[in-house]
């Protein structure tokens, strides 16, 4: 690097913002909220949070980050399991990117309260997550239903619009 132009964390963040999510290319890694921390020192250290622990895109994300940052120096990508990515980590801009791709962003707030240890009844989950009514991203109708809480990737659920007869996806709350 040119000494007059030292590498800043901002440069790294800006570069990471150019990396699309491998399975949801409409959104980039920074707006998805999976980059927990960037440190620039002797090497570049990036902390990455998995959306779902078993997400197979994780290794792809790590490789993309290594490749994209390689021109700036030595890169270390650390996957962090001790801190949870939640759908609240998606930025406002990121939510808009999802909408543009006709994917319903997760509802704001921790919709499903984490039940206490002492008395957890599973039907509380049923009442909240399974019965979320979302507006169709194509026509705006609220006459939609959830077809499957499980979708093409761990973080997506499948819905159907009864007004325009279009299946669509929504991002699960986690």
């Amino acid at each position, binding site marked *: 690097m040119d000494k007059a132009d030292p590498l800043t964390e901002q440069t790294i963040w800006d570069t990471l913002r150019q990396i699309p999510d491998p399975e949801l290319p409409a959104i980039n890694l920074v707006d998805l909220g999976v980059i927990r921390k960037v440190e620039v020192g002797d090497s570049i250290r990036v902390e990455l949070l998995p959306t779902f622990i078993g997400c197979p895109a994780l290794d792809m994300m790590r490789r993309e980050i290594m490749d994209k940052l390689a021109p700036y120096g030595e890169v270390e990508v650390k996957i962090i399991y001790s801190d949870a990515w939640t759908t609240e980590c998606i930025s406002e801009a990121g939510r808009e990117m999802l909408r543009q791709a006709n994917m319903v962003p997760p509802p704001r707030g921790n919709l499903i309260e984490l039940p206490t240890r002492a008395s957890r009844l599973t039907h509380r989950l049923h009442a909240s997550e399974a019965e979320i009514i979302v507006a169709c991203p194509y026509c705006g109708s609220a006459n939609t239903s959830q077809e*499957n809480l499980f979708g093409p990737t761990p973080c997506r659920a499948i819905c159907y619009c009864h007004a325009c007869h279009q299946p669509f996806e929504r991002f699960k709350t986690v």
Partner: protein
Amino acid sequence: MTLAPELQQALIRYLLTIGDDELVLGSRDSEWTGVAPMVEEDVAFSSLAQDEIGHARLCYILAAELSGGDADAFAFLRPRDQFYHARVLEDRTTPIYDPEGSHQGYTDWAKAVARRFLYDLFDDLRVASLTVSAYEPLAGAMHKVQREERYHLWHGEAWWQTLAGSSPESRARLERSLRELWPGLLGLFEEAPGEGLLQDAAILSTRTSQLLAPWLERVQSCCQPYNLPFPAHKAGEQWQLDIEPLQGGRQGQHGPGWDDLYAEMTMVRSMEPEGVW
């Protein structure tokens, strides 16, 4: 956090025990991909299986951080009798496919669903107890796992209601599956060696055997409304089991279901130990 060597050994063994439960159930449930009763379930059951294998990997990563080993080696390079999952998880619930049409073996979706739901009710208690572990990497990881497992409980509960309440045949299948599963499910509560030591160090808030009573309470509240068979009764405040648990899994003793799965899981690794994709 630096752990005394015997505590570290106990924690590694405990992490492998959880990881093995998740890996084995995840592997068995993934066999439903493509043959579940409906396409939605192909997707759902595959997602659940994928989550469990992710959680297994996480446990092996935590164990590897302690032992200086490698998470993949824990998953694929251990001898057959050094896996510590409960035996109920290792049995196949799908037939072995034969292109000629004579598929081998017994299959029942009800059994797969009942095993998964009742295991998830156990796992949920275990995960919750671990979120307060004094070993912070474990506590943090389990918070994350807990957020994902809510979807498993939702899925299981919906199927439980469907099977128990919709037709005489679905109910009969659930009932038969439960009778077959109880001994093995009760075997989930066998302790790993060293759990007492871990509890003294507050790494475990609750030993595996101590999860039995809250699990029975939960399961009873699932069985009672449908008058389904249940493996215990209350004598005063205490639960008394009416069925002998099938144990040994936590000591590495397994049945024929494991021979078959172990051979399949380790096949590629043993042919091509350095293979990557």
